[in-house]
């Protein structure tokens, strides 16, 4: 039983990390009042770009950089459309999904089903031999530690810095922020591109670390789950951590329960990650009745200075 739990806990980051990073990307973007539904497409493109870079002879870090860059470029397309040309955010996001999946298919043609050597676990020496803590905390691949760093940075950046304050102001009330001298277009575009970089990182994690191979459609809905997690987490990075850990943890235990042959209904198991995440994230919403709504007030609203009144 001990090894069962240990092996399960070791594999949790594999499921949770890509969801968490993509979720952070959604949150950063949404804090500026833009909802980018294109996450699934951005992750698909970056996952393909990462593996293609490795198979072309690039190093893993180079591949990661290429993947992140692809995420930024594709989200920049979305940003220019919605922030500069004021197109509908929902519609543009869906177009990005189709674009990303299409581009990934074109780019990845000829690179599918070719295994790569991806990021391996970091060697922490004696720390790895500590009971329980060793293999769980010190047995992960380097991208998991980068993820932890990114969560801290995002949380700090959005909530504790002056730039973060302006970012949230743009998301709450762009015309007031504009009056106060904040460049709404630059802030929104910046948030979209940083969000795209995070989603690109998430896609790269899937193909370079978790799967170590690329096949078409391998993102398999994780982009949509990241958006759902961001909504459940009410746009707070630390709540996203809780949500991603519960969701990823439940997903990680499913194959392990099945392999033991325990008599549990499979379809019920498949539903569990969604149910548990929903339950846990609803609790604070119920208990903190009367508190303000956390959703950025200007979410999904494009800002046109001429419309100000």
């Amino acid at each position, binding site marked *: 039983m001990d090894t069962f739990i240990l092996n399960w806990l070791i594999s949790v980051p594999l499921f949770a990390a890509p969801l968490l990073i993509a979720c952070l990307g959604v949150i950063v973007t949404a804090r500026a009042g833009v909802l980018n539904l294109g996450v699934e497409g951005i992750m698909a493109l970056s996952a393909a770009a990462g593996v293609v870079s490795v198979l072309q002879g690039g190093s893993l870090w180079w591949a990661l950089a290429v993947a992140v860059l692809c995420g930024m470029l594709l989200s920049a397309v979305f940003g220019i459309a919605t922030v500069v040309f004021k197109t509908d955010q929902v519609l543009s996001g869906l177009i990005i999904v189709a674009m990303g999946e299409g581009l990934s298919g074109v780019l990845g043609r000829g690179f*599918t*089903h070719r295994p790569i050597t991806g990021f391996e676990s970091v060697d922490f020496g004696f720390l790895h031999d500590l009971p329980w803590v060793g293999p769980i905390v010190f047995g992960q691949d380097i991208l998991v530690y980068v993820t932890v760093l990114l969560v801290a940075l995002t949380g700090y950046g959005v909530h504790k810095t002056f730039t973060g304050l302006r970012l949230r102001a743009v998301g709450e009330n762009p015309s007031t922020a504009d009056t106060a001298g904040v460049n709404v277009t630059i802030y929104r575009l910046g948030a979209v591109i940083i969000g795209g970089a995070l989603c690109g990182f998430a896609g790269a994690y*899937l193909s370079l670390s*978790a*799967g*170590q191979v690329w096949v078409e459609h391998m993102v*398999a809905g994780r982009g949509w789950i990241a958006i759902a997690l961001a909504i459940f987490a009410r746009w707070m990075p630390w709540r996203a951590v809780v949500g991603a850990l519960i969701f990823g943890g439940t997903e990680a235990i499913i194959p392990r329960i*099945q392999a033991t042959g325990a008599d549990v209904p499979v379809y019920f198991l498949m539903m569990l990650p969604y149910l548990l995440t929903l339950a846990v994230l609803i609790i604070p919403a119920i208990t903190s009745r009367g508190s303000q709504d956390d959703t950025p007030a200007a979410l999904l609203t494009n800002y046109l200075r001429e419309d100000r009144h």
Partner: protein
Amino acid sequence: MIKQMVNTAIVAAAAVLLTVSAYAQVQLQGDPKAAFIYLSPAHDGGWTESIERGRVILEEQTGLDIHFTEDVAEEKAKVLQIVDLYVQRGYNIIIGTSWGYGEALQEAAEKYPSVAFMNAAGETSAANLESFYALTYQAWYLAGMAAASATTTKKIGIVAGFPLSVVNWDINAFQRGAQAIDPEVQLVATFVNTWFDPVKEGQAAEAMIEQGVDVIATNLSAASVPAAAEKAGVRFVGFQNDMSALAPNGHLTSVVFHWASHLVPSVQAMIAGTWESPGSSFVGLDKGMIGLAPLSDAIPTEVRERIAAAEAAMRAGELTPFDGPVRKQDGTEVIAVGQSITDDQLWTMDYFVEGIIGTMPAGE
């Protein structure tokens, strides 16, 4: 609910089969021009790649230049549009490759009676449309024999997609074959509920290895299952194509499609003007449409001989993987001694046989 749908489908298929037998030969107009419609990219490492291998052989054998369109979604309008374009350009042999193309190809077959249509894994048929599939379970039985001879923990495993009858019969035949060599062997079966998710497939394999499984088979195509097997130093059985390159140390064998063995004679008959749609064709070992990749040296000579004997018996129709007694996981008998499985029982298979560790989702 699902059972009802399956039953309805079987009745419908039987009705179609009966009406089809009255039809005549299809006369192509103009020179023969053939094209395939693929569900995914040609080199997807799995299903489409196995058909692509067949297309290449078909080109060599018939001398035709055979075109293909990749990544065509299972949407009626899309499939019909591609068929229209091909027909306008003078193509008169069109071969689909997915169950989900069935309805569209049936409609196209009615629209273009002088064009010959085939569909791999389809369920629909017409005077000029044939659906065909391989009796995969026959080769899975042989693969099970190989797996049982290579396990020391007496626990083997299989990672599968969804609990459909065509998947369940693979899993059950794999276990039946293993039991034929060693009755004590148990098979851990896991459905990942996806057709392509390398992360989940790899994790399912790792979880099995942690439970003591030392031979892992995949009923899917992601490279992460052989990778997990290779990393843990356990044995591996592949599917659809020869997967030996993905697990050079652990590869025991793969259950491999050889679509050309059915495509070549069919297309040759179309060219000769003697082809008529048989409705549905389920082709097995006897025609060589399914088989094993070369066996690993790890399999002892005695077992190789038994595998060869079983293969010969199946080709001759003297053996099926589901000859009675066949019992379900809980011990209830499905097929009595001296009886064999019927087609109906195959197409409605919604249980695991004895010795399988795993849970079959409720069928109702």
